């Protein structure tokens, strides 16, 4: 379960990002998008978190078990869920959401870089970073 403060922080980042993408200044819009993607990433990762969950890296020796391979962490008896039933005993935090966010971070780098260069080219072509002046880009 997330702490209250983390939730509030993420929500605040959403608000700040939203406010920024409503601006006219292209650079500020890019900053807003960056903040929004930070917020989304943290939100997704935090949903996989639960108390006493371990970092999803398997450590320790493994031993043969009658039903196949089990681990010293005794995976066979545990369940793991992103949406956490309180009773279950969890070993690891959810690795899937982390894998998703790992991809998302890299993609947001790609898009941010592209938009920034686009902003730079728009400035070269039109002499402004004010999107309200770019009438040719209107819907």
């Amino acid at each position, binding site marked *: 379960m997330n702490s209250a*403060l983390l939730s509030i*922080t993420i929500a605040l980042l959403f608000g*700040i990002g939203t406010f920024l993408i409503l601006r006219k200044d292209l650079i500020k819009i890019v900053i807003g998008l*960056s903040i929004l993607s930070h917020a989304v*990433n943290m939100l997704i990762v935090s*949903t996989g978190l639960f108390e006493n969950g*371990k970092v*999803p*890296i398997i450590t320790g020796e493994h031993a043969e078990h009658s039903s*196949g391979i089990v681990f010293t962490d005794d995976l066979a008896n545990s369940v793991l869920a992103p949406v956490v039933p309180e009773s279950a005993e969890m070993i690891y935090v959810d690795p899937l959401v982390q894998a998703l966010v790992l991809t998302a971070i890299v993609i947001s780098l790609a898009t941010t870089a592209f938009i920034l260069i686009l902003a730079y080219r728009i400035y070269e072509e039109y002499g402004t970073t004010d999107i309200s002046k770019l009438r040719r880009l209107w819907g």
Partner: protein
Amino acid sequence: MDSFNAIVLSIFLPFIAALLVPLVEKVIKQRVGWFSAAIAFISFILIGQVTHNVVEGHTIEQSITWLPSAGIEFGIYVDGLSMMIGFIASGIGVIIMSYSNGYMSHKEDLPRYYQYLLLFMGSMIGMIFSSNIVQLFIFWELTSITSFMLIGYWRSKPASIYGATKSLLLTAGGGLFMLAGFILLHSITGTFDIPTILHNPEIVQDLKAHPLFLATLILIVIGAASKSAQGPFYIWLPNAMEAPTPVSAFLHSATMVKAGIYLIARVHPIFSGTDAWFLLVGGIGIFTMLLAGFLAFRQTDIKAILAYSTISQLAYMMTMYGYTSYHEPGIGVAAATFHLLNHATFKACLFLVAGIVAHEAATRDIRKLGGLRKEMPITFIIASIAALAMAGVPPLNGFLSKEMFYETSLEMGHVLGGPFEFLIPAAAVMAGVFTFAYSIKLIDGIFLGKRHDDHLPEHIHEAPYTMLVPAAFLALLVIFIGISPSQAVHYIIEPTTAGILLEEVHLHVALWHGFTTSLMMTIATFLIGIAVYTKYDNIAAWQNRTNERYPWFSVNYVYDRIVNGAKYRAGSFAARAQPGPVKTYISAMLLLFVVLGAIPAFIVTATLIPDSMNFNVPAYEILILGMMIIAAVASAVLRKYLHAIIALSSVGYLVSLVFIYLKAPDLALTQILVETLTTIIFLLVIVKVPQTFREKISNTTLAKDLIIASAVSLIVLVLMLNATQGIVSPLESLSYYFVENSLPLAGGHNIVNVIIVDFRGYDTLGEISVLCLAALGAYNLISSRGDNQ
């Protein structure tokens, strides 16, 4: 080759050939028309393969699986009816494509023209041999689309565009009604297969007793009527005359407009013998044949006269198919079928003549034409044969089917009794009179009378043989069927009628059959027709005056009002919904997000502060998150870009600290690397742009944006706090699988890494592609710079 394969090949050969046309054109240039004609001829021969079977009274039903889950098959059903229309579609196709070689200028875009024609022919053949309703509908709509493309063949002419749009809106729109009718039919009968319905009398019985019977019938008749230009839908056909004349001859007189008639004939065994059928089909037919025949007087373009006459002649068939009674559901079927065949011959021939006249005399205006009999004697003879056949003059084929039409009307009148005993034959005679008058007008106006030297070119020649021979061939057919009808009746009309009535049929058609009432009606038609013809111009003038005085009293007026109104409304709506600034759209999307988020939150009575909430926040967390909030606010409010970006990258680095705290070490590492790169790119860009931008934010804008931002922020908070509290039901997570199999299957200890590179490797491939595309895009943006500077 067995019959099934022959028919399937005859359907798909034109489609395949259409793809080959551009290649063939590269080799044989403008002779590509002969290639298309050859394809049509092969289709004709392939359909001919099945004739002996069908004439002996067999039908061919075979299908292959197509969409088994939906009960849809690709099936072929060949009976007399589909065979006849198949012959008309491919046979007239040969004639039209040969004729086009002379008609179409070599400067035109010939491959496109022949491609459309072949596509149309394939769709038409596919439609009539379909045993499955869904398959029939698909081919049906394909004919509408190819017709649209052919009408709009001359893309730059506004009249072509108008005509093409109108035909598409009306025929494809009517097709949608028909689709609804088909769906009802399927839900009542439980099958898409036409032969299954036809050959099971219990299904037909149940259908006729079903409460939705009338709705089904009306919907299907709307589809058929719109395709065949019947009732109020007739208005598209005159505008369709903007197509090249061979197209008008092919699609808009001989084949495509017969699709609706075909459908009526096809569902005849299912729906006929009821009052609703008689009133709907017969009623639309009588109304249309009189109206269109009458309105033909006003037309001055010979193709427009032919268009109205086509509407009226199609209405004859509609009327006859509609003439049914409980005792005898098929009173008019033989007559309608015979007229369908005859009309295809003489009307296509007349259109070809119209094309010849327009080609040589450079005008289609009947007021400017006249006296061409000396300069174009062969065309004159061909035109006279075809026009007299249409007028119903013996010994031509039109006379025979007109006689049958009169007999049918007498019979139907007799069945109904009362005033109808007189009214129904009278309506038939009136339609005959109009037909007679405009048929004579065509001959008289173009070939007889005085030559209008001031409107016509000095020398008019006879047309080239490529154009004359196809027309002459049709004219010979008109005479042949007229003088010796027994072959056509035995090989085509009897099987077709048997296919519609589902029983053996023997017909006796002869030129002379005694002094019957119908012969009297024919003589009366000619006498009244001549009388009306003497007043032809007066009637036309009266129609023109009426039209000027009451412009709203016309279907075209209503159509234009609706279409223009729709364009105007759509335009003004779009102008309001899409004013231009991107900000409006983003605000709208964000508000929608807020509303969509709020609905579940408040319906499921989310609690803002769940019980299990963790308020036990350690000091280091307060430090990290507090700094993050400060940095984020700073990046928003700082004016200088450099400062804002430094604040932004502090947010990013703090996020990587949070990832560590969230037990995601891989993310933390990646975040540090990515944040560093992002900061560098930001810095590279901002040294090139002005260091600051002062946006003047008015108080209202500020208030609005702050409201949107806080609403988004709040809804995210509510959703996030409640995500674990039952708004979102816990799903069976995929994560178990990855955790359990990471080591045994992939041999990796770091589960996240294993997911990225192994279990979900394709996702990573996609991610790399995004990076590549972004890099390529950025590179192109930068390198496009040189052009303007």
